[in-house]
């Protein structure tokens, strides 16, 4: 077995991640900015020992200057006067998990103490979203279609309901909805992945064989890329996988830190007939995507150029790169190129936990890409996101079975880890979505849950209602925890005319955002907000509104926002309850449409045919089981809204544990 040392570049070789307190010599690049991580050069034994003596002296000096604090802190940590709401580096606004929101917990002295019981927790498990039987899951890995089966792999912790000990889980389906769990595909049994079998992607070769590239965290916690392939291509279930004996096939190149090199993509063909992949990384705070060419997936040449990079975006995880058709809403094989094609670069931003993408042009001659609109380049706060809610580490694959591109996404929890441990599981996958370029705008993608989800639809009810200003209307559909809702809204012409003519209606579109000032769906404005409230109690003590908010722009145009407000989704004080959403493009003549999938603790909302999507996790304590209801509301001050919609009860997907019987059952349908 090759020694890990032999393959690593100098800077990596000298790092001892298992002994984190060892000094690191100055790395292989000069760093103009003062960086807390950089270490000074080694001086000499005499100098160092003398220096250490003086360091000890200096530390003693600081300690005594600090007075009694340091001693106290070490042994009996007392409360400090400092509040938690003081400013903090890089935290403000970047993460939904803000300290303020958590520690000024709702309630206090007068609300009853809240406790999770097993009934509330077991309700949270979904009926038709992919999730393992227990424990922690994160990134989707290597999705592919092969010999009649959709394969799905995922980051999995077999030992706990929190991240750790990561291996590859595996499941198969005929229709991306009804799944059977299979045995683990890959475990951490080699030195080059003993610290983690991390994210990777599949490439299907022209002869029909499959190669899988994935990141391994080595025994020295260096991130490397490894090759694996099915042991038996005649087994349509691809139960067993073989790791290439020559692994790793890629190690961090010079200039890239050993822990900034992960998540290789599906490969695409170059004009020379080679295969090309890209791997996300960073240099200082610039997020980048490295490019490698290969003919056999075993040896690679690194291109001098990057696919792309954007300053101040931090580490790019789970990079994805693929073509989209400009003229038709269909999927394209990853290698397709041509005049009717644009290319998407997507990355998951480690700093913010947002997935961003941009539409642009790929230059196959040198493997570079530029965005159509550099002001909304990948990772910038203003750039487009697949989803404005809880959604990360997404990955697409080309489904050659039905000629579409499918998007998988990791949907984490928004509750406390104690609850995850108590309920025994954590995380879901979003319903797979088709993704394509919005041929009407040409500037954004549109996503839609795969058609096959309609096979879960049971009974339905159709409604046509007129909502007067300020109305809240219960929608009687029976149980309301597993629903598919398709709705169309229209504001009455008289109300719109009045709105435009009314000078007292302030133009606020430029400053508005769904999460602004925490008022969410409770605000009342000229034209709304209006929409549905899902997982609501009869008294609306808990509810999750999904709605449109229409704001007037300075140029008198309307700007429409699509939002989900989880701030009142639960009275529990240990869950995160953000207000999510974004502007949604509405073209002339279009009615306002939304689609909502409700599945226990997950709500997936699609605005305007999937131009703006929002996934939310909610944890109601009373709006559960039979007590969960559906409402329609119109908060407008005096506009009337008509709503025309259909609500389906959704069946369970009956995702089964592994057995040959379960596999056979899927084959029969």
């Amino acid at each position, binding site marked *: 077995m090759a020694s890990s040392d032999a393959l690593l570049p100098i800077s990596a070789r000298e790092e001892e991640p298992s002994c*984190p307190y060892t000094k690191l010599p100055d790395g292989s690049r000069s760093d103009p900015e003062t960086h807390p991580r950089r270490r000074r050069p080694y001086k000499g034994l005499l100098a160092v020992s003398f220096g250490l003596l*003086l360091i000890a002296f200096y530390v003693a000096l600081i300690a005594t200057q600090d007075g009694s604090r340091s001693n106290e802190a070490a042994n009996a940590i007392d*409360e400090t006067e*400092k509040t938690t709401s003081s400013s903090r580096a890089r935290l403000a606004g970047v993460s939904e998990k803000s300290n303020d929101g958590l520690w000024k917990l709702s*309630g206090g002295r007068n609300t009853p103490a809240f406790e999770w019981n097993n009934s509330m927790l077991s309700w949270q498990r979904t009926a038709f979203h992919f999730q393992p039987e227990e424990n922690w899951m994160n990134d989707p890995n290597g999705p592919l279609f092969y010999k009649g089966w959709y394969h799905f792999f995922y980051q999995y912790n077999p030992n706990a309901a929190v991240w750790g000990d990561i291996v590859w889980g595996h499941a198969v389906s005929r229709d991306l909805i009804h799944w059977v769990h299979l045995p683990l595909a890959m475990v951490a049994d080699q030195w080059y992945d003993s610290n983690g079998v991390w994210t990777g992607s599949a490439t299907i070769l022209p002869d029909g064989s499959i190669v899988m590239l994935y990141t391994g965290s080595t025994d020295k916690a260096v991130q490397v890329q490894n090759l694996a392939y099915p042991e038996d291509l005649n087994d349509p279930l691809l139960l067993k996988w073989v790791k290439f004996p020559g692994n790793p096939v890629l190690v961090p190149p010079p200039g890239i830190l050993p822990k900034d090199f992960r998540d290789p993509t599906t490969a695409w063909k170059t004009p020379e007939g080679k295969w090309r992949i890209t791997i996300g990384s960073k240099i200082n705070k610039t997020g980048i995507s490295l490019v490698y060419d290969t003919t056999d997936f075993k040896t690679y040449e690194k291109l001098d150029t990057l696919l792309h990079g954007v300053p101040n975006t931090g580490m790019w995880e789970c990079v994805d790169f693929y073509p989209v058709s400009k003229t038709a809403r269909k999927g394209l094989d990853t290698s397709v190129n041509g005049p009717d094609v644009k290319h998407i670069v997507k990355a998951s931003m480690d700093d913010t936990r947002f997935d961003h993408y941009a539409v642009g042009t790929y230059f196959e001659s040198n493997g570079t890409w530029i965005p159509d609109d550099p002001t909304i380049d990948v990772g910038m706060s203003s750039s487009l996101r697949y989803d404005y809610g809880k959604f990360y580490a997404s990955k697409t694959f080309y489904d050659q079975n039905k000629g579409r591109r499918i998007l998988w996404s990791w949907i984490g929890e928004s509750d406390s*880890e104690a609850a995850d441990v108590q309920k025994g599981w954590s995380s879901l996958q979003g319903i797979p979505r088709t993704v394509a370029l919005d041929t009407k705008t040409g500037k954004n993608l549109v996503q839609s849950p795969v058609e096959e989800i309609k096979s879960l639809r049971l009974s339905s009810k159709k409604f046509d209602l007129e909502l007067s200003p300020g109305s809240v209307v219960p929608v009687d559909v029976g149980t309301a925890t597993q629903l598919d809702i398709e709705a169309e809204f229209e504001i009455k012409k008289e109300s719109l005319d009045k709105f435009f003519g009314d000078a007292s209606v302030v133009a606020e579109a430029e400053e508005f955002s769904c999460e602004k000032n925490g008022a969410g769906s409770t605000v009342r404005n000229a034209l709304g907000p209006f929409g549905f409230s899902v997982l609501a109690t009869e008294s609306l003590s808990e509810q999750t509104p999904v709605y449109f908010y229409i704001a007037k722009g300075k140029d008198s145009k309307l700007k429409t926002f699509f939002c989900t407000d989880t701030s009142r989704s639960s009275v529990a004080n240990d869950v995160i309850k953000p207000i999510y959403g974004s502007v949604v493009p509405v073209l002339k003549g279009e009615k306002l449409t939304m689609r909502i999938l409700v599945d226990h603790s997950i709500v997936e909302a699609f605005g305007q045919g999937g131009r703006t999507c929002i996934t939310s996790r909610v944890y109601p304590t009373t709006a559960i089981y039979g007590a969960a209801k559906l409402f329609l509301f119109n908060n407008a001050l005096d506009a009337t809204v008509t709503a025309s919609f259909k609500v389906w009860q959704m069946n369970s997907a009956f995702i089964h544990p592994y057995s040959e019987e379960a596999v056979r059952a899927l084959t029969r349908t």
Partner: protein
Amino acid sequence: MKLIVMVMTMMMISEGSMIDQTCKQTPDFKLCVSLLNSDPRGSSADTSGLALILIDKIKVLATKTLTEINGLYKKRPELKQALDQCSRRYKTILNADVPEAIEAISKGVPKFGEDGVMDAGVEASACEEGFQGKSPLTSLTKSMQNISSVTRAVVRMLL
């Protein structure tokens, strides 16, 4: 000799400032510095190392709080329900949050470390809320919230 002393002094001043530089970017400079200085590994650690020291402090504090909780069952039997909840939450900090954070930071995927560290603060707060204003653990709760907040800031420097 004077020159060497001067050079060594300057060397050691910039040595001490690693902790200073790091702690300046956290919500509680004093707490951060005192925690890191109280650990012998602090003076020679890089950012990952400092984060791991702080996570260790979280572990120590959680253990201490659990001991306190166990003692309270006899002294304050009327608080049993809240104490049960707190016990569960502090056990989560020890058995889930801390190991997750240590593994994540050691392996260079600090965002999972951020999750674990932040959750420690969430669990402490949720436990506190369970007493509805009459908590015997307030001081320990605040310590956990503060250490969690400081540690999170340090972990975010690794992103």
